[in-house]
């Protein structure tokens, strides 16, 4: 599948993307991974609403149309069900589609192809078919976009056997996990918090998808500490780290675990940490009830870490209401760093 406006794509495949270490944004790290994959594998193509000349609603695909042409950067009609269903059909017949959902909220229009088709085909058909597709979901609140454009729906997908779900928090992980998703033979949902797109960080770009060291299903201890374990993912990992930094000044030593993948969940890294600290706080932006955090808590409570627990487990997650528009109400719905500082301080002080 050559680029539409070029006949010598082979030349550009030789040395497509600079692997120079640099400081860049989360959005650009995602774009770099997309470029790497597109150059490395002709079967890779992208589809989504306004991903061409518009550059995507959040600018992630800016410039890709010019680089790869409209055969491979496919602007679609506003038809989420068809876009994801098309991707499933393409994936089972030899190509590797990457779909950008314009806002994660709209994926509910595509739940059938994602949940009943993509997640099930490999299993149902006895392993006769693989569904190597990637679905990118820009989600989360804090942008004043209200109830239908601010959700964190990741628990929905993490609940479905057959799907994999990653939720990178850092620039490097956004790059590496997307590449790992692209070489995975299964449907992978990539959760990207909209407020992360402009965050800067160091990036070591990979030359090919196979060079990515990221493993889907591995959490990371991103800050070591002894007093309590805080588990988060995506944007909330940063909030947890900020809160930990603030508490360090008070002599409270917080360990932060970034889940990075939500399905399959790396419970072992969390259990291991809680065995050391004896205290657990879980945070995410999605509503508390039946969230990914509930699974983390259950895994810890049902493990050897149970005997090490020195205090009740705490969750600092989203309020149980749809995302409101008014700034003060929106802020109250989303767990803020200050909420984490207060909850972590209180948990650290729990007498044992």
């Amino acid at each position: 599948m050559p680029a539409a406006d070029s006949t010598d794509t082979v030349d550009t495949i030789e040395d497509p993307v600079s692997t120079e270490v640099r400081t860049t944004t989360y959005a650009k790290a995602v774009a770099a991974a997309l470029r790497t994959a597109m150059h490395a594998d002709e079967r890779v193509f992208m589809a989504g609403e306004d991903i061409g000349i518009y550059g995507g609603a959040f600018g992630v695909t800016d410039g890709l149309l010019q680089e790869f042409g409209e055969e491979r950067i496919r602007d679609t009609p506003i038809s989420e069900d068809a876009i994801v269903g098309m991707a499933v059909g393409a994936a089972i017949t030899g190509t590797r589609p990457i779909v950008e959902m314009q806002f994660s909220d709209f994926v509910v229009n595509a739940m059938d192809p994602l949940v009943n088709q993509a997640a099930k085909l490999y299993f149902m058909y006895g392993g006769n078919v693989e569904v190597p597709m990637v679905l990118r979901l820009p989600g989360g609140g804090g942008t004043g976009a209200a109830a239908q454009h601010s959700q964190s729906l990741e628990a929905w997908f993490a609940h479905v056997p057959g799907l994999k779900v990653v939720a990178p928090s850092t620039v490097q992980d956004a790059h590496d996990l997307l590449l790992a998703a692209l070489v995975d033979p299964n449907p992978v949902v990539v959760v990207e918090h909209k407020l992360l797109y402009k965050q800067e960080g160091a990036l070591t770009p990979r030359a090919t998808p196979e060079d990515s060291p990221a493993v889907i299903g591995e959490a990371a201890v991103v800050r070591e500490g002894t007093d309590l374990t805080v588990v988060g993912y995506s944007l909330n990992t940063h909030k947890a780290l900020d809160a930990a930094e603030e508490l360090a000044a008070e002599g409270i030593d917080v360990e932060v675990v970034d889940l990075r993948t939500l399905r399959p969940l790396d419970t072992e890294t969390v259990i291991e940490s809680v065995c050391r600290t004896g205290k657990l706080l879980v945070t995410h932006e999605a509503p508390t009830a039946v969230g990914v955090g509930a699974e983390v808590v259950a895994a810890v409570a049902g493990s050897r870490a149970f005997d090490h627990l020195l205090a009740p487990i705490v969750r600092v997650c989203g309020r149980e209401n749809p995302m409101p528009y008014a700034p003060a109400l929106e802020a109250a719905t989303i767990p803020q760093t200050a909420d984490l500082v207060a909850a972590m301080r209180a948990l650290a002080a729990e007498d044992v």
Partner: protein
Amino acid sequence: MPRHDPTEPSGALEALTTMWTIRRFEEALEDLYSRGMLHGTNHLSIGQEAVAVGACGALEDGDFITSTHRGHGHSIAHGADPEPMFAELLGRETGYCGGRGGSMHIADVGSGNLGANGIVAGSMTLAVGAALSQRLLGSSAVVLCFFGDGAANEGSFHEALNLAAVWELPVVFLCENNQYGMSMASDLSTAGGSVAGRGAAYGLEGVRLDGNDVIAVAEGVATAAAAAREGRGPALLEAITYRYRGHSKSDRNLYRTQDEIEEWRTERDPIARFEARLLEEGRLDREAIDGARQTARERIRDAVKAAVQAPEPTVDVLEEAVYARR
């Protein structure tokens, strides 16, 4: 009887004043946004006023509308008060939704406005249900369902048309074809060449209207609404119009030329055209037209003034906000 007939002097004055009110309302939003007083994003319908005003004016009291993400004009044309609309956009307690909804979710169900919707085509099947309930309740109300050219590519569009047609429900589906769905030209996304043409698949005639001619829209909707009210089933109308502003705040307008925008603004502006026609045909004089502009300007100025002074909601309202109580 339609609420107002734009071919009569009083109806024309009403329609013109409402079109100006919508335009001034949205210009005021741009102003508030540039001063950092509005957060989030919003979708402006500047250039499309004739569709909202012609269509809502052709309804009768008690009829319903369902709206879209680009819904300020629909609300105002259906009779909404600009003050609680501003308050909603400013996130204030006195807004139509208490500040919980914002631009994309303004609704006033009591007056038959079943709400703007942030999901493209999201309200189309709702319109079908509203029409069914009216029939079950023995009401003769019709439902006017606004949707965009882009929405016609959602599955919901087809499911809504089919269901309304097989059940012969009183829904007037009105496509506001402003040529684009975000950056996607409607020509490139619409197989078959027109949205109206898709009506044939559901046994509906499918009528194209000049969406920048308020009288043409009013007549088209009045005819369709009358038929629906008599039990002759739904209608599919497609009003051709144009959006001057970007899709939303993030739009860099890379997918169309400035010339194209200018051409629509200078040659086909729905308000300028209506004013010129009224003068030419002697239905309103200059003084009356200036009066309409003045009325709209004052309404908007007063509404903004009041709305910015309204209190912000407090967090405790969220407790009671999620579930209805018996």
